[in-house]
């Protein structure tokens, strides 16, 4: 860098500032999005301390007036007002989307790790694990949800301990479905990562007297799970979007709620653009979060250094 010629240095600085402007915009957008979400949720939980429950955080009229005052944007004043009117529905649906994704991903991970380990290091259990993975990956997720909800009617068997946590017990059926399905996908990502841990690592673990299982726990997993982060992030991102399938078993998550408004107002395009943007914001948050996690747990020389 120090030896860079002046023009190159300037170009670099310009590129840097470009990047930092982009970064700043992204951070601002993220802060606005999450600020709006969290404040909306708190408002709802506390029974409407900021605005009455179901009302947007900013008055529709004010937004319409603001748009109307700006030449060129005046034509969109009504649309802007409509979007603002939609925000309470969006924030409410997004809550379930976030919770279903978070809980399913976590529970799925807990299942996926042993699935992947048995797949790589098991004998008979490797076949069981393979069978599970192929069955769950090889059939449509929506069909799986239908079997759990309509077929097995699991919503009526939600155990008392967790029943009532959500307004409707069907949310647990969705979480179960995404957990079982996601575990299969996560296991595949983790399996690939475990296989890339060098054989010599296991030999060395065994040589100091660790059992096979201890070696897997103390040596293979800490490395393999780090390798798995980039591909595992895919599953995180997919799950955010696939969680919209919960709407088909009547879980009032983001897609379900906005779809309902769309079928009442027929403003499909606008509503699904806004809904899509909301999913996009969640997905970007997830991938940024996982980048941070990857950086935080990175170890010099372990796995490929991520290119910035």
């Amino acid at each position, binding site marked *: 860098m120090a030896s860079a010629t002046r023009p190159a240095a300037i170009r670099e600085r310009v590129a840097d500032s470009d990047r930092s402007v982009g970064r700043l915009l992204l951070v601002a957008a993220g802060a606005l999005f999450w600020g709006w979400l969290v404040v909306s949720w708190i408002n709802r939980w506390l029974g409407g301390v900021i605005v009455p429950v179901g009302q947007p955080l900013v008055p529709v009229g004010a937004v319409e007036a603001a748009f109307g005052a700006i030449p060129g944007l005046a034509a969109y004043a009504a649309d802007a007002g409509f979007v603002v009117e939609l925000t309470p529905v969006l924030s409410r649906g997004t809550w379930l989307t976030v919770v279903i994704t978070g809980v399913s991903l976590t529970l799925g991970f807990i299942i996926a790790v042993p699935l992947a380990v048995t797949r790589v290091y098991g004998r008979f259990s490797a076949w069981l694990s393979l069978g599970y993975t192929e069955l769950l990956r090889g059939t449509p997720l929506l069909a799986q949800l239908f079997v759990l909800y309509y077929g097995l009617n699991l919503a009526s068997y939600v155990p008392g301990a967790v029943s009532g946590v959500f307004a409707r017990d069907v949310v647990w059926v969705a979480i179960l479905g995404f957990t079982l399905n996601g575990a299969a996908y996560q296991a595949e990502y983790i399996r690939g990562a475990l296989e890339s841990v060098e054989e010599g690592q296991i030999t060395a673990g065994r040589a100091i*007297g660790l059992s096979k299982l201890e070696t897997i726990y103390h*040596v293979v997993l800490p490395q393999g799970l780090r390798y798995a982060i980039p591909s595992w992030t895919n599953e995180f991102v997919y799950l955010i979007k696939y969680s919209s399938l919960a709407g088909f078993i009547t879980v009032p998550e983001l897609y379900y709620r906005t779809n309902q408004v769309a079928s009442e107002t027929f403003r499909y395009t606008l509503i699904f653009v806004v809904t899509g943007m909301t999913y996009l914001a969640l997905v970007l948050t997830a991938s940024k979060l996982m980048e941070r996690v990857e950086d935080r747990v990175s170890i010099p020389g372990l796995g490929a250094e991520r290119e910035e």
Partner: protein
Amino acid sequence: MSDDDFLRVTDVSKWYGDEKVLDEVSFEMDRGDVTVLIGPSGSGKSTMLRCVNRLAEAQEGSILLDGEEVLSPDLDVDELRREVGMVFQGFNLFAHLTAVGNAALGPRRVLGLSESEARERAEAQLERVGLSDQFDSYPAELSGGQQQRVGIARALAMEPKLMLFDEPTSALDPELIGEVLEVMHGLVEEGMTMLVVTHEMSFAREVADEIVFLDDGHVIERGPPEQLFDHPEEERTGRFLERITSHD
């Protein structure tokens, strides 16, 4: 009396499929002895070494370590490996752990020492191999010679009664071999019992109590270094030594 041998390998044979890689190998060591296994690549010396801590399974014969049968199916291999340290050609350091982490893992998880006791022990062993300034370095941040010294410290941290060295300098650049051999020299002087596979003939000559020459899974010849290096009885030994010393 040979019944008191610390390590007694008797007629050990091993097959990989149809291929016999060890053919009735026998040798014995006293406590504090240094035995060096030499021979062409593929002669079975690394396999022999691995049979001693059961990283490889010998199908026939007997290996008595301190009076206990290593090859017994009832033996707890993890317990055996606690007492037999091993150093690998490719170092095999735990890539996610620092130098201290590498040397502390065994004491912590296998011997059940507390976090601080394990760390203390790991640091002491790293000091012993001359790495007191690299406690918190990760393997990728160390040179090959330093990595192998961590490998030695990791094995020593278990306070083994026997150390196995599997070509510890073969993966090293020539200028890094010396520092590893120096550490091994130190261990010899401290009276460590060592079974070493190496191509470093001058090191073998200096420190070995006995040299075992293996070829094609057979012990061709064994004896003190002066005898084996200067007056080999077998033609094959002579030819091998000629080949390998002309490399130096």
